[in-house]
């Protein structure tokens, strides 16, 4: 009897373990910065976005897993095979630009982690760029991956920090379920950033390649589905904890996060003098993980769609475009960070916003593919499933497009915002 209970606990943890890890690691340096900024600037105002994101993220990732498991193909391949070369080019360009931004954001995270100790980016970035290139090229990052994943568990300190900051939980829950859209460019900007960092174009390509490369079989689908939703939950849960912490520790004292230093301050009440060290280590690990994965997954998807040789088991001479693309991403990111006027923190958040702007394009492909699923050998969806996937996806696409549109409109024509405000107030 006791043995049986243990067995269930074991199965539960073997499912939830990977979920916690992948869910937590989803929040890279850009994510931490964006959530910290949001919490310290707007308090709980943006919490509702996380609740909405939880459903969107779980749903879109599940679509990715479904497509991957039942077709055995990556997202780039499916877009190419189902929509032809022209649409593929659009999808691939979107992905490439978005990933260029995210890679740059990861490099900004690396630079920021070292600058906490006063080590100049002009010193660290060139060295790291070379190291990352070698690690990706040699494929040795697979061994390092586990270490970084473990370190990125540091984010769990935000859970304790959030509780220690003694928030008014009633207010937290109420805010989580009160969507609002004040006419404020900075608010739109941050909202888009939060969406763009939680649900990413690259994440969508990555999850599908992941289930394909792991050789997941349709019989694994049910278990994987549970993992996906738990993982989405943890991503958004940690994000919420960061927002709650920064709201209570910083926002309430009128402090807005505009650097890694200030972001680290949010952990002071819990970690005291160790706050900076632990934050720096976690920031570094999260950024390194991203800096390895992004060039790789980008080059992989581009080559997969266009039919160039790819894979880290190939030699440089066999897959020149694959390795070339990785080089371009790493060099571009390093150069941007090294620009003297570049603000690391702004880069990180802007990259997430750009992701949010581009995301709807990928989501449209995703939901169209799912709806065409029967032709590709996907099991027939029940009516309920079909409605659920479509509503959630299109809601996200509309939400992103509307916010993007408003943001662009009001940024280009700030006077318009003023006149609209006057009209209503």
């Amino acid at each position: 009897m006791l043995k049986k209970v243990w067995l269930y606990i074991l199965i539960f943890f073997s499912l939830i373990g990977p979920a916690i890890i992948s869910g937590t690691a989803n929040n890279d340096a850009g994510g931490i910065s964006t959530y910290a900024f949001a919490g310290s600037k707007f308090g709980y105002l943006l919490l509702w976005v996380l609740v909405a994101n939880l459903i969107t993220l779980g749903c879109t990732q599940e679509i990715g897993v479904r497509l991957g498991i039942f077709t055995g193909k990556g997202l780039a391949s499916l877009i190419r095979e189902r929509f032809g070369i022209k649409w593929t080019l659009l999808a691939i360009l979107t992905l490439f630009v978005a990933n260029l931004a995210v890679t740059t954001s990861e490099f900004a995270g690396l630079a920021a982690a070292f600058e906490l100790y006063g080590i100049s980016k002009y010193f660290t970035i060139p060295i790291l760029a070379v190291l990352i290139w070698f690690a990706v090229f040699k494929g040795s990052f697979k061994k390092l991956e586990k270490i970084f994943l473990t370190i990125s568990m540091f984010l769990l300190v935000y859970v304790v920090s959030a509780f220690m900051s003694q928030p008014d939980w009633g207010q937290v829950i109420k805010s989580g379920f009160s969507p609002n859209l004040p006419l404020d460019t900075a608010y739109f900007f941050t909202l888009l950033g939060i969406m763009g960092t939680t649900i990413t174009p690259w994440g969508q390509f990555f999850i599908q390649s992941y289930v394909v490369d792991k050789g997941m079989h349709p019989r694994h689908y049910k278990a994987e589905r549970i993992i996906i939703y738990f993982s989405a939950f943890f991503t958004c849960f940690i994000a919420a904890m960061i927002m709650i912490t920064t709201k209570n520790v910083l926002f309430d004292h009128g402090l807005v996060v505009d650097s890694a230093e200030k972001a680290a301050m949010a952990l002071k009440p819990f970690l005291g003098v160790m706050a900076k060290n632990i934050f720096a280590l976690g920031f570094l690990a999260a950024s390194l993980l991203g800096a390895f994965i992004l060039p790789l997954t980008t080059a992989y998807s581009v080559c997969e769609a266009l039919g160039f040789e790819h894979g880290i088991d190939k030699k440089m001479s066999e897959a020149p475009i694959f390795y070339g693309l990785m080089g371009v991403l790493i060099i571009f990111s390093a150069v941007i960070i090294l620009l003297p006027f570049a603000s690391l923190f702004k880069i990180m958040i802007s990259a997430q916003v750009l992701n949010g702007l581009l995301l709807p394009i990928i989501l449209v492909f995703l939901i169209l593919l799912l709806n065409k699923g029967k032709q590709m050998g996907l099991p027939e969806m029940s009516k309920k499933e079909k409605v659920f996937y479509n509503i959630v996806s299109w809601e996200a696409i509309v939400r992103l497009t509307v916010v993007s549109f408003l943001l662009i409109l009001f940024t280009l024509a700030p006077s318009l915002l003023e006149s609209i405000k006057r009209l209503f107030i």
Partner: protein
Amino acid sequence: MLYLSQILNTKVLDSADKKVGKLVDILIPAENGLYPQLNYILIKNRKGEEFYLSFDKVENFSSGVINLKTQIERLEKITETPGQLFLTRDVLDQQIVDMEGARVVRVNDLKIGVFNDKMSVLGIDISFRGILRALGVEFFDIFDFFKVELIDWRNIQPVNGHLKLDTVAKKLNKLHPADLANIVEDLGVKQASNLVKSLDKEAAAKVFEEIEPNLQQTMVRYLDADSAIKIVQEMPDDELVDLVKSLPKPEAIKILSHLQKTELSAVQNLLRYSDDTAGGLMTTVFVSARPEWTAEKMITEIKNLSDDVRILLYIYVTKENGEYCGSVSLRRLITADKNTLLQDIMKPYNDLAVLYLSQDINEVIDVMTKYNLYTAAVLDDNKKILGIVTIDDVMRHLKPNA
């Protein structure tokens, strides 16, 4: 000469130059031999209806306009076309197998031209130029920087669409297992598993051996238990042991539990030795004989042996209790008089280089290189022969990714 991308969406006119619709797909016979001729075209009219026309009705086929021989009212619209491969739906933009290059490529465009007086598919374009052409921006490449890279249709094998896997397998069976393994590695696990399953089990096992270990594990887990076991059973026991060692426990046990008793004990014996020793490298399948056998008896014995013995260069002569006496090369055996006893033509143990169970892989390589051995006997401390190491096992260690 024409490319598919240039002719797709071309308007189709009837004999009175009345517009019928536009071309959306071309159909060819699914079973392929030579260059397949175009059988039907798929047309979409202004109302959005799609219908097939036999290619015999086409008068003029060019990228500007397609003219038909008859008037629109007299067209025989076909709705069913069994056994056809759709060029746009099933081939263009899909992955296909390049049999000559033993790789998987993506079809960027298709080349169409006249063969035996019939419009036929001649080959596929996999170049970047093909992508530019398909995008309608081929003129970008003013300096001819990107070259067209064509693969002859006879050397390709589609893997998508409504193809029967057994016909695919028949064609692929002609490839060398190592080349097939390359193709399998290029395909995703799902397609790869389908392909391996479609081969007969001996061929599948040979391909399986050549696949890189990571993918082997993934595929064993992906395949249903029955097919996985059927395939791995056909592998030589030393390869099987390597595979079992690399698998997570539940899968390993699943495979071991399905092995036959004799094979199981051999595998279990081998499992005890660590990978990089002579014991870990060796196979237990070899030809052994007694010293007092005649050459004639030996040759009949060999003829009766099953296909299990992959490499036969030496006959290993042992005493009743398995103690190693010496070896007879195949050449000596064949050239010897039929009544000669093996003990008279064998090279005695003292003159031979042998390996010991716990010898390190590097020593094994040294010994085999120094004495130019294709196979070497592995002995335990009592001079009993337990298996042989063959040169392919050693080579795989020297260059693992080949």
